[in-house]
């Protein structure tokens, strides 16, 4: 397959940059699932400005996770993080990050496994529900556990990352076995 995706070292280097830049700039650990959860709890969050300029946390005072918010960010900062992801994703799409055209569908491998009909919507919805429920129950996703937690050598994150990678690998082999 021909694509012009970035090489591993560039992508890996920039992902690490994000993982360290986010807590340095925002004062809370990186985590997209937590940010989405906070978006959903929008109306319950602390007013804007309370966490305006994140000061360096002092020793003994845990930052972020133990506050009333999911990510420790105020809701504007949280929303801007998600908007940033959307802008970055759109730029990537413009710049060769979506080689499969603009059909609105997922990549050919997905279509080979699950087809093209209406049931695909249900598969994605159900799978998405597992992603949403699972990441919140586990307390993190690919970014929160995988990058940030593993990067800080946090045992729960190392275990969780091993589990979701292991299960995803097993399920992928099962999909190939039974659906292709």
């Amino acid at each position, binding site marked *: 397959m021909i694509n012009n995706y970035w090489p591993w070292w560039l992508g890996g280097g920039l992902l690490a940059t994000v993982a360290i830049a986010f807590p340095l700039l925002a004062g809370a650990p990186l985590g997209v699932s937590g940010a989405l959860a906070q978006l959903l709890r929008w109306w319950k969050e602390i007013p804007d400005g309370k966490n305006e300029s994140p000061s360096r946390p002092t020793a003994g005072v845990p930052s*972020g996770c133990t506050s009333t918010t999911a990510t420790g960010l105020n809701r504007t900062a949280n929303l801007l993080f998600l908007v940033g992801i959307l802008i970055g994703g759109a730029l990537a799409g413009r710049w060769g990050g979506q080689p*499969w055209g603009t059909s609105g569908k997922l990549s050919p491998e997905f279509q080979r496994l699950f087809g093209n009909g209406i049931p695909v919507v249900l598969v994605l919805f159900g799978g998405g529900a597992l992603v949403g429920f699972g990441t919140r129950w586990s307390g993190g996703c690919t970014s929160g556990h995988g990058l940030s937690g593993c*990067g800080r050598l946090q045992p729960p994150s190392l275990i969780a990352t091993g589990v979701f990678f292991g299960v995803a690998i097993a399920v992928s082999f099962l999909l190939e076995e039974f659906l292709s």
Partner: protein
Amino acid sequence: MKPLAALRTLLPGLLLGLTVGRLGFADYNELHRMLLFRDGRLLLAFATAVGLTIVLFHIFRRKLNLAPVAFHKGTIPGAALFGVGWAVTGACPGVALIQLSQGIWLSLATLTGIFVGIALHARFNKKLGTPAGSC
């Protein structure tokens, strides 16, 4: 919020979206091939990212004092459910957003599912034993 303060989360988000997109992590083909060990590029990228992050967190350890990640009842089963959903949809929460912004409208179904999943978890939070405000 001052404009510069806005950049504190907007810029890392933008770089995350751009990198994940340009790396091909939001492309089901690439992810599926990674999970089948048919292509090592994304695995290598992820391992590099984690390795470098470990080094960077060590360098900046005095500047950062983040709360430790707590282990709880949901850490393992939650990760397992996520693994199933990830392999099927090709999307982790960030990837669902990136796919949408790339014009993959079908990912709206994934994203809707993710929000429903998050809401279900919030509904049964106490019974599931997730610590309040965990991330």
